[in-house]
């Protein structure tokens, strides 16, 4: 079976009962999409299916054949020079210093990105309602709200100023 993920065609095992989350994570190695509950409650596994924020933990992979899937790994855009530009929502999450542990953040960002595509100038209440179904156990809600508000105010096409980019944690070999 073929899936279109982040603009690429990927071949996956023909297993109609396999769930998209685990195909992404364990079969294709796209571990940016996270497992939180397996019950469609927490939102950590949110991806875009044809542009719609969708919980991948309950979704049989057979249901998304022929559809366009976007994960957190495909949210930034890569230029020809190998340099990528973060999605404005990702940039806003850095600018506001939103994540703590980070486990829910892919889901938060994918939810916010799809929401702002459909509601470009949301009210505060609309943002809260849109983000209310994504758990953050670290309790970053104040900053998630601030980041989505910031991304909305600047617009999805805005080129935000460069955020502070530091080195990633490394595990030494």
């Amino acid at each position, binding site marked *: 079976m073929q899936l279109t993920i982040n603009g690429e065609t990927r071949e996956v095992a023909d297993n109609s009962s*396999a769930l998209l989350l*685990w195909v992404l*994570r*364990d079969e294709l190695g796209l*571990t*940016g999409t*996270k*497992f*939180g*509950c*397996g019950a469609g*409650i*927490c939102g950590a596994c949110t991806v875009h299916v044809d542009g719609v924020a969708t919980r991948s933990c309950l979704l049989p992979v057979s249901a998304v054949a022929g559809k366009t899937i976007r*994960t*957190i*790994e495909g*949210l*930034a855009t890569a230029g020809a020079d*190998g*340099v*990528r*530009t*973060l999605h404005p929502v990702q*940039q806003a999450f*850095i600018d506001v*210093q939103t*994540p*703590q*542990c*980070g*486990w829910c953040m892919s889901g938060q960002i994918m939810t916010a990105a799809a929401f702002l595509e459909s509601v470009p100038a949301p009210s505060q209440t609309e943002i809260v*309602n849109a*983000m*209310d179904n*994504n*758990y*953050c*156990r*670290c*309790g*970053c*809600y*104040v*900053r998630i*709200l601030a980041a989505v508000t910031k991304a909305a105010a600047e617009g999805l096409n805005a*080129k*935000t*100023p*460069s*955020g*502070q*980019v*530091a*080195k*990633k*944690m*490394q*595990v*030494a*070999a």
Partner: protein
Amino acid sequence: MSDLPITQSPITQSPITPPPPKRRWRITRRGFLIGSGIGVAGLALGITVGTPYARLKIAEMLASGQGQPGSFPVDPFAWFEVLPDSRVRLFLTKVEMGQGVHTALAQIAAEDLGVALSDLEIVQASTSQGPADGNGTSGSSSVATVYQPLRQAAATLHQMLRAEAARVLGVPADALSVAERAFVVTAAPEQRVEFGALVAEQKNWEVPEEGAPLKPDSEFTLIGQPLARVDIPAKVTGEAVYGYDIKLPGMLYGAVARPPTLAARLTAAQPGAAATMPGVHQVVIENDFAGVVATSRAEAHAAVDALELTWDEGKLWQQAELEEIITVGNGNGITIQRAGDAPALLEANPALIQAEYRSPFAVQASLEPQAALVDVQLDRVRIWVSTQMQARVRSLVAETLGVDEAIVEVTPTYLGGGFGRKTGFEVAVEAARLSKAAGVPVHVGWTRTEEMRYGYFRPPTHHQLAAVLDANGQISAIEHRQASGDVAFGFFPTWLATVMGADFGSYRGAQIHYAIPNRHTIAWRHELPVRTGWWRGLGLLANTFAVESFIDELAHAAGIDPLQFRLNHLPDDTAGQRMRAVLQAAAEKAGWGTPLPEGRARGIACCTDVGTVVAEVAEVSLDAATNRIRVHQVTAAMDCGLTINPDGARAQIEGNIMWGVGSTLIEEMRIKDGQVDINNFDTYPLLTMRDAPHVETILLEAGDGRPRGVGEPPIGPVAAAIGNALFALTGKRLRQLPMTPERVAAA
């Protein structure tokens, strides 16, 4: 535009690299460690947790005539490496679980090393590279314990490099300054030598005899700055690698059978249909353990469900029985605070004011469940795991497999939340057993139901408080009698628990910090048939809820404003002055005493914990139709001493407040028919954005230059502040957590 280079995360590459050469350390006379044996030139300088301890051991060795300082085998808990390519790497044993510890420690290290934060590479150390850090990452202790030795090591390394640069350039050491990762002659910057050039040749580095001077606090450029966290970019791109994400070539997935009840024992097990199910590679049945290794997680779980297992269910415990155990006066209480003679003054006093409080079981509920990848080979065991306690993982896996700890390598990953739960080790032990049997690397990642049911819980508590007021409205005597399930004792050997008597984890926050002439606190500990243990702040939330709600009751009984009443009882010492400052700051910012819109009220509470003082004001309303409490805003003032990263400290306050609100309004785990009566977020929901309060934070500093903990103290006052606000609004006093609509209606 933000330009992040597209790179593979190093952590995913590490599994396929060869084992690292074992570094050896020699300890210097001043208690530092100089590393060798990495096979290249370069300089490694490390520090132990207890440099004074190391010095003591050296002194003992010298006194006894055995050994020399250079031969004393000690592993460092943090160390620098300066490499010939001028990279400076800081290896840390403390794990990053969202609390920002890597950034805070990097700020501290870079300050005295004299480099920019971006010139420092932060590396999460595996246990094979150094020590396992027996303290782990917990108890809001990392920055407070590491601060001074890390600065000393950074300053010493700076001094060593500076001296070598002075020799190479032929100028006095004080004629040099640091420019990026090089020393330059200040008056002639074209004369420079890179760090890498200084360490390019193998040489015997000596630590200077005199202590390297530390930068005066007034000259700090990094410590105290709200710098961007080093781990955040990878967390918005999906590249950050956690225990659930680790991959190795040839790996399979494991699942483990779980007991149907709290007291169940596995009495018989047969593979049954599981052995021939699709994807199954191995069925593992050993004594009390049954698990399956399969090609996918789904196949592993399906096969576990098909195992033929016989359980002796044991006693079917009910919630009411457990609450009866957790009752003040049941068994022997241990006095943990005594000033004056409160019991005598309170006994049979007609003016006695008393109240009882209760808090329930709660779950840590990290959004990343327990996860580990383990590769058991004949001569080497490698583990990647979300853990706060890599030393414990190493020793328990070694014990389970019957191998020497020295061949077990534990690499902590990023943690998708810790909150005390990831000091556990079960998942790594399970993956190790399965990997050993299957002969391939095995990943075990718990389901949400496993995470909800098979860990350990915040224990339930019961509190009896009693006090008398004098004619001036001052408390003349107060007693707090507290009963709790175990916290720390759940992890201690029985003999140690017996010697200690009272569980410091359970009674955290239980003592009365006000200046009351007669104060008495007694703690009863109880082992329960449910595992209880670490949870953010341990007993702090429950104890502060009881004590600070009761103080509020006394304030109202005395007819004195609750803020003023607290101020009236503060001791006239540094601790009292710090508490006064945070109370007044929070109250002022929250508009304490000023009118609110109809239907809203404020409540105040405070606590002292790990040397940090916090005061919080909650602003609430009550939906009359649903009896739901709404927390609109929490204003928090905290003094954690020297603040390393103010933005990180504020984030910790915000997170703690969300935890506190969730625990106050929603979170409760119950036992039913011998089993934990929750299995996912539908039966144990968490706070969501709609119910999240706005948070205002104020940071004060004690002014003594010492950092204290921030990861837990702000959780303390939340429940009491909300309950006190509800009383101010409605006259209803909620004495049991959580404050559900049913309890509000019944109050």
